[in-house]
């Protein structure tokens, strides 16, 4: 039984087959990357996993239990956190507040207790803060702690979003194009962090990425897709030398 698996996953939007019959399994502790040209259905797979779309067919298994048919907010409770391609942070809040929202799963107090701000609430708040500070230290965000997200540079926002996902205490982290819009230096940092997340935190990473140098550096296995279908699955080297993948990216050789 694998840690996380998609079985014969398909989704259709009207006549458009966005994802067709995709099956793959992710083992605990690995970095698994999905690559493919634009419109290959990579982000759609992410949205299927976070249950934003219900699949037309197939199922998704996490730690042996089926999650398809559950509701989106429950996915986070199970230990699957994600980031978004176009960054979906809470703009008008500080970095700290953003990260604290990531701790929502660990909420144990009810509204009445919170209105009175009973000692239990205060203790819980301090515990949340401590957990958040660990993530801040881990990703080196100390100097942005009190800054509003709206005023932060793009590269930092990417890291903040990853930090927020880590605050949920995930077992599986979904990263949607972690390096898009980053300069080479920031991409380099991102690679370090992904390696750290895997090694130090023991979090399994499933990511969608275009930057092949980053992909080959961090991923254990790579899945190549085109037009919603699986093309090739293997190590980064194997996939990159697969003629079908080369054809999808560069076209057929005359």
């Amino acid at each position, binding site marked *: 039984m694998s840690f996380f698996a998609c079985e014969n996953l398909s989704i259709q939007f009207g006549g458009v087959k966005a994802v067709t019959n995709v099956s793959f399994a992710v083992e605990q502790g690995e970095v698994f990357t999905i690559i493919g040209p634009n419109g290959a259905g990579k982000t759609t797979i992410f949205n299927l996993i*976070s249950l934003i779309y219900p699949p037309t067919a197939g199922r998704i298994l996490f730690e042996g239990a089926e999650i398809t048919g559950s509701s989106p907010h429950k996915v986070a409770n199970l230990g699957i956190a994600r980031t978004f391609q176009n960054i*979906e942070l809470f703009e008008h*809040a500080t970095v700290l*507040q953003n990260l604290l*929202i990531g701790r*929502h799963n660990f909420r144990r107090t009810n509204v009445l207790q*919170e209105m009175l701000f009973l000692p239990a609430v205060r203790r*819980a708040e301090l515990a949340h803060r401590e957990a958040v500070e660990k993530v801040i230290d881990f990703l080196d965000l100390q100097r942005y702690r009190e800054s509003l997200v709206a005023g932060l540079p793009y590269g930092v926002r990417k890291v903040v979003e990853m930090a927020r996902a880590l605050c949920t205490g995930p077992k599986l982290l979904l990263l949607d194009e972690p390096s898009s819009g980053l300069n080479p230096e920031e991409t380099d940092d991102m690679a370090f962090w992904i390696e750290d997340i895997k090694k130090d935190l023991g979090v399994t990473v499933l990511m969608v990425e275009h930057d092949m140098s980053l992909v080959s550096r961090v991923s254990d296995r790579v899945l190549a897709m085109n037009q919603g279908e699986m093309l090739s699955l293997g190590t980064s080297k194997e996939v990159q030398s697969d003629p079908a993948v080369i054809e999808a990216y560069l076209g057929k050789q005359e």
Partner: protein
Amino acid sequence: MRFLFKTDYDQDIRLFKHNGQRFWYGLLALLLLGLPVLLPEGLRDYMLGQMVFVFIYSVAGLALMLLIGFTGQISLGHAAFMAVGAYTEAVLQAKGVPFVVSLPCAALFAGIAGVIVGLPALRLKGIYLGIATLSFGYIAEEIATRWDSVTGGNAGKHLKPVDLFGYPVDDDIKLYYLTLAILVIAMLAIINLMRSPTGRAFVAIRDSEISAQSMGIHLAKYKTMSFALSAALTGVAGALYAHKLTFITPEQFTLLASIELATLVFIGGLGSFHGAVFGAVFIISLPQLITVAKDYLPAAVGAQTGLQPTIFGLILIGFLLFEPMGIYGRWLKIRAYLELFPFYRKGMFRRQKTYMKSDRLK
């Protein structure tokens, strides 16, 4: 300029962040407590009456702030919840239920109405939700008019003074302290809520529903909760309002009253606790100021009917254009100006969009 040296996480959760705040809020509390004594004899009754209205509107404003300002769900029918609170209070009081029981009941019934109205909010957004709540306001007004046996219809309903454990709250000084106490309690409850997980979940829903969801926030549950809490608190304001007026008719809870409440929140400053109070002061004092100003205006202008709504509208437009953060935003700017003098820059509060720039260009 004050620099806080932080040594403890608790410092970020505290109600008062430093001694300066403690001093100023303490002074404000003393001033409010002593106001009935400090006011000159001739002005006292009038001013206290106005202050009671300010407190009641602040409670309602706070409730609407929770919904619009913090959860991002617009409501244009909030007067309906005031009506539910007011009529519940009136009916229960007539039945001899003591105030300490009838007030929570007013909150409860308004809260239940809030849950029902909140149901469309699970599917509707923005202007569509506005229209849905607006029509609820109409329905509630119509029910209040037609349901004679309970509401007294257009003939209205009389209320006796509040009876607090056998102690009658029968003049404005007593009502002043009662409403002040309720405002302080409501304010503390909302501030506490906003610094705990539930409050953060509300703000998360306001800023990005999709990512709130992926953080494990149950959208339907929290939106409904926000509607219920907001409606319940508005119901409390409605009950107090009924006692202040001592006579209620459906005319007090029309669409215009709802719009007035929404205006209060926008002018006060969306997403701030201060804004609810500032907005209430504004809404209550503006008509009085206009009445005073009429005497000094040329007769051709001052005697015009519809002068008040016109000025009201112009001010609202002015705020939306020049100060979207409302009175609270202006207050922040004035404070920053004084604190930083002479280094305040005009662009300091301008919304910046620097996120496309690389970090290295700084």
